[in-house]
């Protein structure tokens, strides 16, 4: 019995909690991608770097706050800086839309043209971020680091395995839940949200109904920038901020959006968790976990790790390929152009 509890605690500590946090971060990223796809009808390859840009802006404001002695008590100062980061990222998105995408929209360019243009935007943002903050790792988490410490948990429970809950993981989950509720409320209850869904559903009919496309596009960019910045800041708090890592996040985020059904917000959330848990469960070494559960003579000698963490991106790729082969519209039926 104690062995089973130990195994469960171990699993929660190394798979369940990190998977939930990572899944929430991916879900927020995938929501942004899916929203752009649904309304503007292209895959925004610059989303990862928009995340990096928004996070960088948040970090700079955080440092400024810290230098003035402003803090958020036990919570990270970055949460105070987040609204400013979102605003800066939104301004950047609208500028990019005005400078790049609106030109192609006027020409009614094919979706693939937008995708290639977004690759260009991606490189620009990429460069801007590196110029301003540099390519190195930045840690900007402050405040209380743990809600539950492994040692305290061990002492409290008497188990040999500890369970740690870092405050950044809890913050990630709470913020993600609040954001998702707010987003769905906006899309389903407000006039503008319904207009966005209508525009995504049938552009011509939306125009006939008097919906202003310029406003829909503007609001979409602002929301996408907000989602990207929030996802990026949560990821950075949980791990660390490095521009290249954010660029790499593009793959699991797109995998999440496509697995769930691109263009479908519910799908993006489900997809985020599917990808996160696949990555974490496949790259976790089960040696100790099995050691608790199996009789001593059957305990494994090796690490029992299906895939080295170096290959975690392969997981997203494989899932992506399987979904595209067998259910191209994704789990929740997204749109197909």
């Amino acid at each position, binding site marked *: 019995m104690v062995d089973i509890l130990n195994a469960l605690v171990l699993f929660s500590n190394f798979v369940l909690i990190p998977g939930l946090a990572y899944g929430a971060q991916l879900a927020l990223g995938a929501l942004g991608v899916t929203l752009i796809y649904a309304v503007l009808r292209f895959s925004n390859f610059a989303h990862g770097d928009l995340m990096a840009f928004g996070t960088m802006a948040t970090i700079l404001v955080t440092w400024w706050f810290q230098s003035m002695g402003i803090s958020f008590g036990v919570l990270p100062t970055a949460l105070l800086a987040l609204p400013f980061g979102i605003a800066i990222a939104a301004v950047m998105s609208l500028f990019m839309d005005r400078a790049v995408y609106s030109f192609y929209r006027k020409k009614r360019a094919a979706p693939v043209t937008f995708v290639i243009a977004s690759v260009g935007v991606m490189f620009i943002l990429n460069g801007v971020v590196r110029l301003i903050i540099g390519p190195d790792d930045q840690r900007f988490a402050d405040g209380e680091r743990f809600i539950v410490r492994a040692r305290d948990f061990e002492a409290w429970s008497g188990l040999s395995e500890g369970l740690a809950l870092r405050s950044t993981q809890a913050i990630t989950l709470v913020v993600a839940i609040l954001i998702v509720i707010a987003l769905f409320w906006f899309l389903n209850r407000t006039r503008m949200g319904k*207009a966005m*869904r209508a525009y995504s559903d049938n552009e011509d009919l939306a125009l006939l*109904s008097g919906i202003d496309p310029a406003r829909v596009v503007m609001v979409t960019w602002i929301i996408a920038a907000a989602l990207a910045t929030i996802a990026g800041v949560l990821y950075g708090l949980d791990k660390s901020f490095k521009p290249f890592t954010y660029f790499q996040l593009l793959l699991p985020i797109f995998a999440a959006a496509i697995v769930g059904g691109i263009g479908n917000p519910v799908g993006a959330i489900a997809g985020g968790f599917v990808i996160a848990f696949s990555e974490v469960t496949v790259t976790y070494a089960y040696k100790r976990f099995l050691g608790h559960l199996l009789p001593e003579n059957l305990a494994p000698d090796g690490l029992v790790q299906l895939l080295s963490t170096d290959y975690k991106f392969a997981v997203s790729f494989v899932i992506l390929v399987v979904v595209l082969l067998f259910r191209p519209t994704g789990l929740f039926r997204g749109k197909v152009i």
Partner: protein
Amino acid sequence: MSFLIGDGMTGGYGSADILHDCTIAVEKGEIAVIVGPNGAGKSTAMKAVFGMLPLRLGHVRLEGEDITALTPQARVAKGMAFVPQTQNVFTSLTVQENLEMGAYLRRDDIRGTMEQVFDLFPILGEKRRQPAGELSGGQRQQVAVGRALMTQPSVLMLDEPTAGVSPIVMDELFDRIIEVARTGIAILMVEQNARQALNIADRGYVLVQGENRYTDTGEALLANPDVRRSFLGG
């Protein structure tokens, strides 16, 4: 002078004209129907009246005001409503949301208008929370007409409202359209089912190759032996 008139419309999408000096007019509370063989430019004439086709010559006037240069969206704001032939509902939105989007330009209370639409099409009231994409073809057409009525238009334009619905549903839809006309709305519609449409028409236009061939009351056109032989199958 007519309430809405497309006068001497000439134009097309590219260099070749599709419409040649075509005139379509409709009065308040009247039903005007455009019929004709395939490729006669029926839908094109309708689109021209709504500003979806560039005109080389001719004018469109609403209540005497020249609206030839206005975009379709601006015409919606002027009280014109258009129901396209296909993709005329937001399939992923509920029936009620479809109607709300129809009233997007209105800032006042829309509940009264929505009740009127539900009175006209009771089935929509029952299915108000269902996505429009899950409804049958006839019910979708009702959603489409309902959405257009939400702006409280003075002109309702319908592009083949009975395309792809069963004869029973068609009769019922025509009954509803007559009801709408009785409230004082001008109705302009293009119809494939010429005989039934002319039956309810106050005014009929027979187009051939983008030109007016016959223009008369619906009754007179149905009685006209030439029209019967050429376009109504005897």
